């Protein structure tokens, strides 16, 4: 290594040193510690005690764990595709030559910015069984006995899915930007070939924005498997019959309510594996459908 190289190595390391400190303190060490704790009985107050794979084996027989996993997969299975269809539809509508596009875009985007605590309060109020706006609306269109939403175990998850759709504005903005990047010339040549509106969408728009759909899909998987705040604020420890006890909520309760840090860490690693697995499945199954212009 020459003197110049050594010098630039020093300078480079100095610049990235904030990241290096953060990496060691908030990622590298915690990942190793979390892995270790997951094989320990640990209540924070006393030293961790090695118990081998007991935490993982306990998970297999913990019915609450399985319920939280089912609840989370249920939520993800509906909120991801519904959110995808909805955000893409709004983006396609806004991509037409409409007046006031930026005003519409602002309106659809705004709800996704509202602090999660505030939006949880709003939806607690709207979904209120007796005085909620939603049930007023349902009654006025002739549904005499609308659901009790957050008080009925059958309806808590649909309630949260509905609420998640209110926040699709973020994905919508990404789609709209992607739609505007699709070269006009492609549509023109499709027109020359006599393509209708649907086949233009199917054979030009969709392939061109497929990388962005893939990106939003992965973000959706990661985000919805970790859904926490709104469920915790609106339904505390899981709501009626733990029907909205999500994985991250149960994990939080184990760590900070029951003081079972080891079990919480083991759950976190299982969650990581589930996320990796689903991301891998999503990548595998969409590989042929995602089109990268650069390739």
């Amino acid at each position: 290594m020459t003197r110049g190289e050594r010098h630039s190595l020093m300078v480079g390391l100095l610049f990235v040193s904030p990241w290096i400190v953060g990496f060691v303190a908030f990622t590298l060490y915690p990942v190793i510690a979390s892995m270790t704790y997951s094989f320990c009985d640990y209540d924070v107050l006393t030293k961790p005690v090695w118990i081998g794979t007991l935490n993982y084996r306990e998970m297999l027989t913990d019915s609450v764990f399985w319920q939280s996993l089912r609840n989370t997969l249920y939520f993800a299975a509906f909120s991801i595709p519904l959110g995808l269809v909805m955000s893409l539809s709004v983006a396609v509508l806004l991509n037409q030559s409409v007046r006031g596009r930026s005003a519409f875009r602002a309106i659809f985007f705004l709800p996704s910015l509202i602090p999660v605590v505030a939006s949880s309060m709003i939806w607690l109020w709207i979904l209120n069984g007796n005085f909620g706006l939603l049930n007023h609306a349902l009654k006025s269109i002739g549904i005499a006995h609308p659901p009790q939403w957050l008080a009925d175990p059958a309806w808590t998850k649909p309630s949260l899915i509905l609420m998640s759709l209110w926040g699709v504005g973020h994905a919508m903005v990404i789609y709209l930007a992607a739609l505007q990047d699709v070269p006009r010339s492609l549509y023109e040549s499709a027109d020359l070939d006599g393509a209708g509106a649907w086949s233009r969408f199917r054979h030009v728009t969709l392939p061109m924005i497929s990388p962005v759909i893939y990106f939003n899909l992965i973000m959706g998987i990661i985000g919805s498997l970790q859904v926490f705040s709104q469920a915790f604020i609106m339904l505390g420890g899981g709501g009626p019959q733990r029907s909205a006890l999500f994985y991250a909520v149960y994990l939080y309760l184990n760590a900070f309510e029951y003081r079972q840090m080891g079990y919480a860490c083991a759950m976190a690693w299982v969650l990581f594996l589930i996320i990796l697995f689903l991301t891998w499945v999503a990548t595998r199954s969409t590989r042929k459908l995602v089109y990268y212009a650069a390739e």
Partner: protein
Amino acid sequence: MRIFKKAIVYALLLGGSAVFLVPLLWMMSTGLKPLDQTMSMPPTWLPYREYVQEGSQLREVKAGETVPATATVVRKIAPRWENFSLAIAAMKYFPRYLLNTLILCLLTVTGTVLSSALAAYGFSRVEWCGRNRLFTVALATMMVPFPVVMVPVYCLFRSVGWIGTLKPLWVGSFCAGAFNVFLLRQFFMTIPKDLSEAARIDGCSEFRIFWQIVLPLCRPALMVVGLFQFMATWNDFLGPLIYLTEQKDYTLALGLQFFQSQHGGTEWHYLMAASTLIALPVIILFFFTQKTFIEGISMTGIKG
């Protein structure tokens, strides 16, 4: 046919945006009502006061008072602005919550912008051996979900006695998160190399090149990172929930949730007034920085 299609597009957009706006409008409307009107059937959108005609004078109808059927009742729109001050008083430590939130916003925005800009510069504009390998490691850290590191990071802060203080909520922001580094690096790479080369030949130190040449050119990207961090801190719930123990140390988000857990299900007008107070700054900020927001999000979506 053309007009027909246009009409459908506009109908869908108008209907859709109405549905998206209703929850926010309902929040504000409820926040300006007296308690009895929040639960009135059918619901009313505008808060009002009722008066009975008594001779030539109007007398306000008190809550719960039954007005004789013969009396003429006059309704006037009357928002209860005092709900805001009453909600603030009911939340007890509201000024403290606000102060804590603002302190955290200031510190995290400063920390994030500074540290990510430094790290992004080191990862893009200085050539050194091992740089790209280390950057790959940085990208890989984005894969690790928060729950995996949550417990050890909590224990780490606990071992230095920071639980119950604001420190765990901002110290990390001075350590350049990988996502922001990635974002800024993309931007730094678009600035021509000749610029730094010329300055280097003139004997300019690397830090001065960073501070006086590259940073000013990257203001839009720094704005995006700062704005997103502000929003993240203002909205954060899980962090304060884990680390804060005393009510007077709470942030606005945690304070509102605490208020709800104590008064929930009854005082909807105060709850909605308080929610409005927390949501409104974000809404106002959005209207002033709309372009930065939209560009920032499009940038993360497309290049990510």
